[in-house]
Structure formats: C-alpha cells, structure tokens
C-alpha cells in the first residue's frame, strides 16, 4: 500500500480504524529513509530502533483503547536544534557533534504524549543560520524536486523530509523565515506561529526574541493539528504567553466570503522574480473567486527589515552561542596551552564561516560605542515595523505575499555571497520582528518546474483565521498534492 498521498490526519485515522498499525507504517517510513536519504540528506540522525519501539508502545496503548491524539502512531521527525533526551542534537554543527541532551524540549514532550513516533533528527543550517541548509556540518540537504538545488533553510531537512515522503510531518524552527522559505522551496505547508504561542524550552537558541518552533506538513490541516498539540503556555518558558493551546475547530470547512486580504504592493516590486510573482498573483485571484475582498496597501517600513533583523538576530546569537566554549560539552580542541587557547581554537575549529560571521557582526553591534547606533536603533525600528503591521491589520484580516523572491537555486550558487543570501529573507523577517504568525503554502510552480509558495500573515494569535484561509485555498487547488519522483517512487 502506498501512504504517500496520505496526510498525517488520514494516516492517524487509518491507525485508529486498525487499517494499518503504527509499527507497519513506521517500518515503511524507515525503509523509505534508507532508500531516499542518500539523495536528499534530510536526516542527521535516524533512530530506527527507538522509532519502532515507540510505535509498538503507542500501538499497544491504542489497542488498549487509549486516545492519545489524532496523530497517534504517525511517524514524524524533528529539526536537530530541538532537544531530544539521549538523542544527538547537533544543530548541524561540529560544535555539538556529540551532544546528547539530558532533557526533552517541551514540544518533544508534548509530541511524545500525543503518541508521535520520532524517526530521527533533521538536517539544518548550522545553528539555524542560513537559508539553504548548505551551512550544515553534515552536508547540504538536497531538494526532492531537483537534487542539484537547495532545500531552502534553515529548516531544510524538515521541509525536504516531508516533500520526499521520508516523514509524514516534521518540526522546524523559524527565526527569520526558516520554516516558511524551505516550505516554499520544497512545495510543502508550514506555520511560523505567533511569538510565545509555542514553548521555546529546549529549542537551542539562535535569536531568542525571534525564534519560534512550528510544524511542516503535507497540507495546512496537518500543520494545524500539530500546532494544536505543541502550542499553549509552558511554565518553563517565561516568554510563552499564558493562554490555552491553539484551537482550529471549524477552520477546515466553510467559506471565506467577506474576509479581507491585504496585498502590500511594495512586496511585488523590484527584486521579485517573475516566475514567483505570477503564481502568487494567481493565488490572489483564487482567493477573490472564493469570495474574499482584496485590498491593496503598503507596508513601507519593512524596507528596513533586513538590516534590523540582522543587527538584532546576530546580537542575540553572539551571546547565545558564547556557551559553546569547549569546556562543558561538545567539541574541544586537544593539547591546548591554556584556557584562552581552548576558547580560541575550539571555537575556531568547530564553528562554520556563516556562524562566525554572525557572531562577529553581533559582537560588533553590542560593543560599547556602537550599541546605540546599531542595537538600540534596530530595537526602535523593530517597534515601528510592529506598528505598521498593526496599522495594516486595521484594514484587513490578513496579508498575502511571496515567501521568497526566487525558487530554489542551485547548491553553491549563492553560498559565496552572504548579502544576496540575506536579501532572500526580505518577505519573511519582518514577520518575526513583529512577533506575528505566518503561513507558507504551495501555490504553483516557477522556473525549472520548482515549487513556489505564498505567505499569509496575520496579527498575533490569528493562526485559526490564517489556517481557515489556507485550508479554503487547498480545498480549491491541488498544488499541495503534487508529487516529485521521490514521493511517487517511495515505497511507503
């Protein structure tokens, strides 16, 4: 039986109906990973033994009549910057090549309780810094639609594993677009939740005030289901908002008549490839035909989003990554002369170029004499960006935009030009700066038949509304059902 055209919710239902067992399904996906991942490199760790054991446990509990969740027994995988007890959590870095956390991230705990079967840990840009998964110490992940091309990043392994049929759904993290952009590049769906909606406890920090964990799946309903499991207040994360988990009841049916969708015209100007612009404009037409009101607006201040983002994200990263000093865990250079030598050589050896670049940038903007000119100013601009979104949401329910200015490019094509790479984040970073949610779903194909995604942005905790619009779109279109050769040929 092929499970590749099935969503996580459908597979969960099949397990519940005894049409298939979790063990059977898990084994099929492990076989699939073995066959496919040499091409895709989506996984850093495959825990076949652990996954099968979990599947057996979960199946036994289901057989005993326990209701764990709608996704119980469905195999999935987790980005390698989310701590899993006893399982390598490398962050795609040589620095943590041997780090096995002594604890589970809150999201991992919640997934385990819901009966998730964790197949393993997913490839990513080193410490989530990058937009292509090329900066991983474990080698670049490859796009299932064209293995010469990047998956996007930093959650490249998370998107590629779902797109290639190696996992039914996955968790990623999004600091400046790291869930949404690889979803666009790989033709899958994903949600970057409101800041504070999902606990960050156990997510290895890149930029603490921007990071959020979110789901990636075959369609938006799967994502919503996962989000309802992992969201909700967590006492271990002070920035987690004191609210119940997100509820998507009633979001998958009904129409979107009367909903107002804003189109920021300045997002569709220079720098956006025509082959990306066209499917997004068509998606706007689809929404119109579904009964939504379309209104044009401008969010000018987001022109400053990229410099603001890189100042703040790098500043926080420079501090967050200081703990990797070769003393307590992870990589340490042997035969050092003295303490400083341990610090210098261990960090020089084990961090990649992009990470070093950002640590230097961040240290610079926090230095005395530069703090006000860069860090403090960026904080002020961040506030203005938040305000301009607030203003926009006075006029509309949500905003539609491209996710990235291009389709997935060739591996190596941009890696020598960090500035060009940073500009690829233009449509996504301001959402993180404003702390609001963004959804990324497939809306067509661009040059070289590579997938193109669109982004729906709403105000804080408007995920149900965004999901409703995205579900209406997916009910009316088939872009999310398109299959690449790995999906088609997958054994699972």
């Amino acid at each position, binding site marked *: 039986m092929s499970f590749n055209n099935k969503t996580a919710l459908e597979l969960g239902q099949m397990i519940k109906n005894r049409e298939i067992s979790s063990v059977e399904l898990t084994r099929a996906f492990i076989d699939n990973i073995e066959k496919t991942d040499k091409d895709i490199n989506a996984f850093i760790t495959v825990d076949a033994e652990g996954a099968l054991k979990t599947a057996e446990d979960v199946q036994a509990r289901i057989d005993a009549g326990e209701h764990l969740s709608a996704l119980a027994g469905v195999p999935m995988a987790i980005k390698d910057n989310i701590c899993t007890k006893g399982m390598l959590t490398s962050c795609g870095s040589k620095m943590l090549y041997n780090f096995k956390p002594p604890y589970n991230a809150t999201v991992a705990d919640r997934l385990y309780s819901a009966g998730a079967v964790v197949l393993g840990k997913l490839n990513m840009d080193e410490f989530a810094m990058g937009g292509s998964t090329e900066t991983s110490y474990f080698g670049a992940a490859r796009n299932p639609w064209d293995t010469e091309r990047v998956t996007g990043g930093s959650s490249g392994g998370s998107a590629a594993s779902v797109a290639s049929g190696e996992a039914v759904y996955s968790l990623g993290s999004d600091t400046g677009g790291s869930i949404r952009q690889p979803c666009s590049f790989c033709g899958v769906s994903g949600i970057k939740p409101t800041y504070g909606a999902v606990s960050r406890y*156990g997510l290895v920090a890149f930029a603490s005030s921007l990071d959020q964990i979110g789901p990636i799946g075959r369609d938006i309903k799967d994502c919503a289901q996962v989000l309802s499991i992992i969201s909700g207040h967590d006492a271990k994360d002070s920035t987690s908002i004191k609210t119940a988990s997100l509820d998507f009841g009633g979001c998958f049916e009904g129409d979107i008549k009367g909903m107002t969708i804003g189109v920021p015209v300045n997002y569709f100007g220079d720098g956006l490839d025509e082959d990306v612009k066209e499917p997004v404009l068509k998606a706007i037409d689809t929404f119109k035909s579904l009964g939504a009101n379309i209104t044009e607006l401008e969010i000018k201040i987001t022109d400053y989003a990229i410099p603001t983002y890189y100042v703040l994200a790098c500043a926080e990263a420079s501090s967050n990554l200081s703990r990797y000093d070769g003393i307590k865990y992870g990589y340490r250079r042997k035969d050092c002369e003295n303490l400083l030598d341990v610090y210098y050589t261990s960090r020089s050896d084990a961090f990649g170029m992009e990470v070093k670049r950002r640590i230097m940038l961040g*240290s610079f903007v926090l230095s005395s004499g530069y703090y006000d000119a860069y860090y403090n100013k960026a904080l002020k601009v961040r506030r203005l960006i938040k305000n301009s979104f607030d203003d926009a949401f006075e006029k509309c329910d949500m905003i539609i935009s491209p996710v990235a200015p291009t389709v997935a490019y060739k591996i190596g094509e941009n890696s020598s030009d960090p500035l060009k790479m940073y500009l690829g984040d233009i449509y996504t970073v301001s959402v993180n700066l404003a702390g609001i949610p963004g959804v990324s779903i497939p809306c067509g194909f661009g040059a070289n038949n590579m997938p193109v995604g669109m982004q729906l942005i709403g105000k804080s905790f408007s995920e149900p509304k965004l999901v409703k619009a995205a579900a209406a779109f997916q009910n009316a279109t088939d872009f999310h059902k398109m299959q690449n050769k790995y999906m088609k040929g997958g054994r699972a």
Partner: protein
Amino acid sequence: MNYQTVVGLEVHVELATKTKIFCGCTTEFGGEPNTHVCPVCSGMPGVLPVLNKKVVEYAVRAGLALNCDITRVNKFDRKNYFYPDLPKAYQVSQLYLPICRNGKVEIEVDGVKKYIGIHEIHMEEDAGKLVHDPWDDCTLVDYNRCGVPLLEIVSEPDFRSADEVTAYLTKLRDILMYLGVSDCKMQEGSMRADVNISVMPVGSSKLGTRTELKNMNSFKAIYRAINYESARQTELLENGGKVIQETRRWDANKDATFAMRSKENAQDYRYFPEPDLLPVEISEEWIENTKNTMPELPEAKRARYVSEYGLSEYDAGVLTSDRDIARVFEGVVAKGGSPREACNMVTGEMMKLMSETSTLPEELNIDAGKIAALIKMVADGKINRNTAKDVFAEVFRYGADPVRYVEENGLGMLNDISLVESTIDDVIASNPKSIEDYKNGKEKAFGFLVGQTMKTLNGRADPQTVNDILKKKLQ
C-alpha cells in the same frame, strides 16, 4: 600635602531563598560538587530561565530598608564574558534598570553620624567555583553555586576611612540578616565586597584614580587593605608617582596588596536586555505589602528597648546585635519575665554559655518560657540568684524544666529560720579565730563566716537573711 582616603563599595550578598534565581535547584551551601545543578543552571543548550519571585521580594525588602527608590518596571540584562565558572558565558544581571536606586544608610563612628549613599542595588546570578586539583594538576569546575541569587549593593564613594567602611558593613549585615534576606556568612562567601580605593588632597573635591580589590570576604581584611592601599597610594603621589587604575589582590599573609595580571579595564561586557525574561513590574500594592510586613530593624528595636523597657543604650545594643538574641529576649518578656531581669539573663548567663559552648545565635534552641519561669522563681524568693545561674545552665545545655529541676535537686530556698540560726551558731562555735579577727576589725572574716554558713546549707539560704542574723549574733 595631606591626603584623604576615599572608598566606595560593591557588596555582594547571596539571598537566603530556598531555590536558585532561575531554576528549582537548592541554594544550600556545600554538597558534593555538581549535585545542586540541572540543565538550566548548568547552561545546557536550549534551556530558559524562569525568575524566582522570592528574589524580587527580597530585593524590594532590602531596598526599602536601605531607603531606596524602587524601580517599578524592572529588566534584566546579559553581561557577556568568557570564564569556565560561567556556563552560559553571560551573567544575567541588571544594568539599565536596577531594582533599587538612591538609598542611604546612617553610620556612626566615634560618636559622629553620617549618611552613606546607596547608588543602586541590582539582582543577578552567582557563578560557579573553580577548584584546583593539585593531584592531577588540573582545574575542575563546581557549578553548585551557579544561579544562586545575589544582590549587588553599590555605594557612593562616600567613605573617608576604614572605620566608616567597617561601621557600614556591620550595619548592612545587621539589616540584611534582620530582614531575613541573607545569612551574610562571610566565611561561606554569602557576603563579599569589591572595594574601590583612592586618595585625594585634603580639601579637594576631585576624586583620585582608584584601584579595586575584588571579592574581599572578611571585615578585618577589608579594614587592613584599605589602610594599606591608602598609604601606598599616598606614598606614590608624594613621590611624584601616579596611581594606575587596576585591580589589585590583597594578600593577608603578607599584609599587602599586589597588582593582578589583568586586562579587565579593557573588557567590554556587551550588555544588552535579556530576551528570555519579561520585564518585572512591581506594583504600588506590592511595595505597600512589603512595607507592612517588614520585620523591625535593629535600630528601631534598640530605640524601643530603651523607651519601652527602660534598658540602657548599651544593653539594648547588645540585645539587638543579633536577630536571634533579640528573639530570645523578646520571647522571655512575652512570657512574663521582667525586661530588666530578662536582659540580665540573656546578656549575662546566656551569652556567656554561648561563648563557652561555641553556640551561634542562629543555633539557639532555648525555650524562652523556661527562662521566664526561672526569673519568676527568683522574684518570688523561691531560689536565690546563685542557684538561678546554675539552673540556667541546665536549661541552656539540656533543656531542663527549671521548676522541676529545683524541686528534684532540693535547691529551693530555706524558709526554716531556726535551721539557719542553729547553723550560724555551729559556724560561730567552730571558727573562734575568725570571730576574733572580725572583732578586731577584719571585714573579710565576716564574709568567710557567711560563706561557711551558705556552704553548710548547700546555698539554699537567702544570703541577706544569713547576713542579718550573723551580724545580730556577733554584736
């Protein structure tokens, strides 16, 4: 030219909370290395801090006691630097919005009172400890102390002598211990100070270049170090030299300070707001509640003992020198002991026994009701004062019940006057030499005869009665 010493202090006190500032680990001192740790305080990847509210409460209490303004919206900042005892490579502290500002403390030296300004008090986390292992010639890290909450109390450079510094530290320690916010045990490092010292010409208002002594943990060392450092700087300047701004180390064995190899002045801590913690808002109501539940501070207590109980300034000072001694005294008074007698017992017998048995005030485990009962027995003429002292020792050492103890050991005062009289007659009869001496004007002989009588009566007679009868019989 004469030079004036100028000192400013940064005092670190560990707060007496049960758990650490950002996790649930115990703050208990000691413990095998790295047993009071969890992923949070050992800085594992992915962990997040959750603020212990008790820390804020204690900080507000200390701030109010030190006459500070309380900051309503508090933020934490990260202080970034690399050191193996700091597992996150940053210390969560407060730079931009410390919880308390603009306080003052009154001190008195040689009868002269003055105020020392408190610039600010901020909350922060402690670091771990490095332990050198001489056997393997390596350095080990113990993270038990990591995340123990600290208050850093920064004074203005208002001190003009080592005596003023000692007076301030003593007062600060008394206040903080009374508030119950810290046990201020210097030997365990729960109170330590960074001392900034400079000198300037007398009459000048321009501060000289300062040097800093870090992590000083004894009042005596601080006192000696200030005097040494002030003399060193004065001599330097008098010989046309210049003081270099640097961190110096106090060597107690050599009784001198030495420059440390340190680039610290060039260090940039790259402070920025801690993104993992939300701002802490302190409401008016919270401040009012704290004010209303503040324990009485030593100064107020002392004044009250003088006005309410009629004790001398000196006695009141001794009783309030420690929170636990005052606690025993007040307990005795509450149980009906007269304040005068309670004071005598506590400052006399009790403190003597404490020093004999090396008992610390916080270890005092004596029932105030029993002391009150003892005082009552003396007042009622049931036992005499000498007996009371012996009974007190029994109460102190073994928790004896004084009434029962007196009864069981037959220590009650004799009411049988005829027995006293016949005993005196025996003593007179068997000591003719002393009688003669007494009649020849040797007052000492009288005392001897009283002593002999008391001894024969096992000390149970009222010495005054013995005196009176003996005098009458010898006339």
